[in-house]
């Protein structure tokens, strides 16, 4: 696999993200949060809680969920949806890990 995957961009190594943590990718349309869970699965969401736009990247990552640092809404990383009873969604972006590198899809195919 090389950096020529169309529409995908290598953003960091998996090791650059602490397990149960997140890093932020600045972008013109707003920050993107890249999460790494304890099982090493990686998710990418727009870094804005649907509630009060809190930076989700700063929340506590547990299972495949993150708790927003501002008011503790819990967001499902697999879907970007808030966990009931809260309603809302932080849009999700395609992301994958290939040979230890984290790739983010930034253009619609």
């Amino acid at each position: 696999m090389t950096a020529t995957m169309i529409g995908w961009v290598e953003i960091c190594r998996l090791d650059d993200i602490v397990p149960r943590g997140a890093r932020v990718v600045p972008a013109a349309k707003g920050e993107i949060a890249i999460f790494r869970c304890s099982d090493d699965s990686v998710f990418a969401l727009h870094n804005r809680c649907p509630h009060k736009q809190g930076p989700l990247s700063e929340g506590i990552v547990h299972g495949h969920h993150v708790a927003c640092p501002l008011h503790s809404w819990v967001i499902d990383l697999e879907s970007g949806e808030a966990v009931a009873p809260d309603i809302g969604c932080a849009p999700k972006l395609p992301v994958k890990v290939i040979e230890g590198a984290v790739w983010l899809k930034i253009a619609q195919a």
Partner: protein
Amino acid sequence: MSSEPLSARERLVVIGNGMAGMRTVEELLKLDPSRYSITVFGAEPYVNYDRIMLSSVLAGEKTVDDITINSLAWYETNAITLYTGDPVVAIDARARTVTAQSGIIVSYDRLLIATGSKPIVPPIPGLNLPGVCAFRDIRDVDTMVDAAATYQRAVVIGGGLLGLEAAWGLKRRGMAVAVVHLMPTLMERQLDEAAGRLLQRDLTERGIAFFTNGQTEEVTGTDRVTGIRLADGREAPADLVVVAIGIRPETELARTAGLEVNRGIVVGDNLCTSDPDIYAVGECAEHRGQVVGLVAPIWDMAKVCAHHLAGGGELAYSPQTTATRLKITGIDVFSAGQLAGGEDEDEVVLRDARRGTYRKLVLRDRKLVGAVLYGDVADGNWYFELIRRGADIGDFADRMILGQAAAQGSAGPVKLDTKSMPDDAQICGCNGVCKGTIVETITTKGLTSYEAVKAHTKASASCGTCAPLVRQVLADTLGVDVDGPTIPTVCKCTGYTHEEVRAQILNQGLKTQAAVRAAMAWKTPDGCAACRPALNYYLLCAWPGEYVDDNQSRFINERVHANIQKDGTYSVIPRLWGGTAKPEELAVIAAVAQDYNVAEVKITGGQRLGIYGIKKQDLPAVWARLTAAGLVSGHAYAKGLRTVKTCVGLEWCRFGTQDSTSLGKQLERLTWGTWTPHKFKMGVSGCPRNCAESSIKDLGVICVESGFDLLIGGNGGTELRGTDKLCHVATEAEVLEYCAAFMQLYREEARYLDRTAPYVERVGIAYIRQRVVEDADGRRALQRRFLHAQSFLQDDPWAERANHGVDAKEYQPLPALSAGR
């Protein structure tokens, strides 16, 4: 009590002062207290105790006193002659006498043999070495406890119920423990293979080593045991070897006396032996080819035997299905009835690898005939009841594997449904107590407490696992709302309370979050945003200097040592000791504010200066500037010491009685850097006018002419609470000592996220006075523990991050995506 004079009574002699014998005597006294003059011989030098609970004594959860069933006073009250430490050595059935080791000869009209059983001793060399024991009586437990205090390594031979409880107890006492088991899986008589493997996995995680398929060939050593060797050549070193491979009925006396004996002393349905004047109960008896080793059928035997001894002729003993539970804290195992299905049975299995639970049901002809549960045993009683009653399960057979709630259609979390139980539903398996009996006893005796119900009915008095059911029946009967105030659990990941979790961390020596979650059967693999910070704090408090703080389990403010603001920027608040600042410190704060375009600097409520609106990636650089000028973190973000607010005091104020500013600084120097269950604020006022608002602080000091009034438990937040006065002390040194002690007590006992106000309300000011004021030794011990913890905590987190690169990645964003994306 209409009583015959003792001399006119028939003479009953009981051989064996154990649970079976004394239970029979208790039942007999209930039926006819004045029929017999009773003499009891016991081989052990103790009164009657609960042998089931020896595991708990070994594990350090109970003392020998706790497990006494009948005290000496009980024997006296009931005019029972008791010979302890004096085993009977011969029965003369023709002369109707027994002879004890001491030479005493006692005649009987009726004889009851309750000699129990003895440990099976395998035919291997070395078993007579010092350091080898069984696990049968108090003396064995003493041997093990002594060994655990002196030696390191133990080997337990036998991976059944008793062996595993012995292994766990020794582990709890700090020994390295290995278990040798002849079979491929543990507890194979009570568990199927799958559950046995889960059990082995969980015990391995708790540090117990296993040698399965292991046949011990030799116990090695010359003056004392040094290890064991297995037939296949494997070896294990040991300073203590516990042999727990099973028990065998103690029948020697009966055999010599000419009674009919097979494996046990043969008894009929009336518990009478081949001699019409001699009865036998308990583990020494054999009924229809079966010997028993569990307490429930023994209580049935006691009841039937007492009935016949009292002259009754109706009751017949018939064996019941029994259920087994393992007494290892945090490991829940339940089994009852048939373990595996044959040709006529169906097996239904539910395995949840994530939760680490397993359950198997064995069904035959619309009936449940067996159940094995591992990890979640809440439905054990329900299944047991269905097995015992032979209930028709046709209507919900397909759902019953999911438990009572799912099968019977009630929604929500599983509750103990005792209301819908029939009166003859058995609540306490050990003591054979039905729901109806408990309800009737509560009503007729007007009982209102669980302890009283336990005392009167014996329900939950043996192994104790049915205690929640007994409490529920009490609540139902009294009409008390059990959904009312209850002790909160840590979070939805667990059914355990904060107190239970903290106790287990200490008792089981759990030193990582993963160990806590594994040992206490957490429902989630890595917790949630509520329990992770709590566990992190509890472990940090329990194991100072040893537990490694888990940054990813901290709320953002504590993770980055700054306060997140609503726009995602951070505030930076350096510590101004006692609210004082040097000009050069003010200058650097001003310079940082200018250089980072900070709109304004605010004097905080804690009399410090806050710089607001700093971007996360700028934090390390800001801290570098501040630390270079000698400023340190003010921990304005921490569940820890915040500020010590002071007034100017004696130095300037015309009312001041003491140097409150200096004392405030001393308190701040003592306590900064500590982590506490919630934030902790202090105040020191130089006189009772209280300008530092000491009366709404977690710990406040009011200076007076004669010394210092100490106040605790105040809160100026959403729920305003004035302090309680703890005490008056004379010197500044005492203020510091009492402060450290109170903070440590709060650290060790409050629930995570409880301020001192709810903590003080929960335990009461009297309790805190007792711990901190009245118990001087205890106070100094608390102070020592506080200072010990502080020796690891007083490092400035800003300097570590600004100058030593700690958590560098946390503050750096990744490279930006190119423009337009």
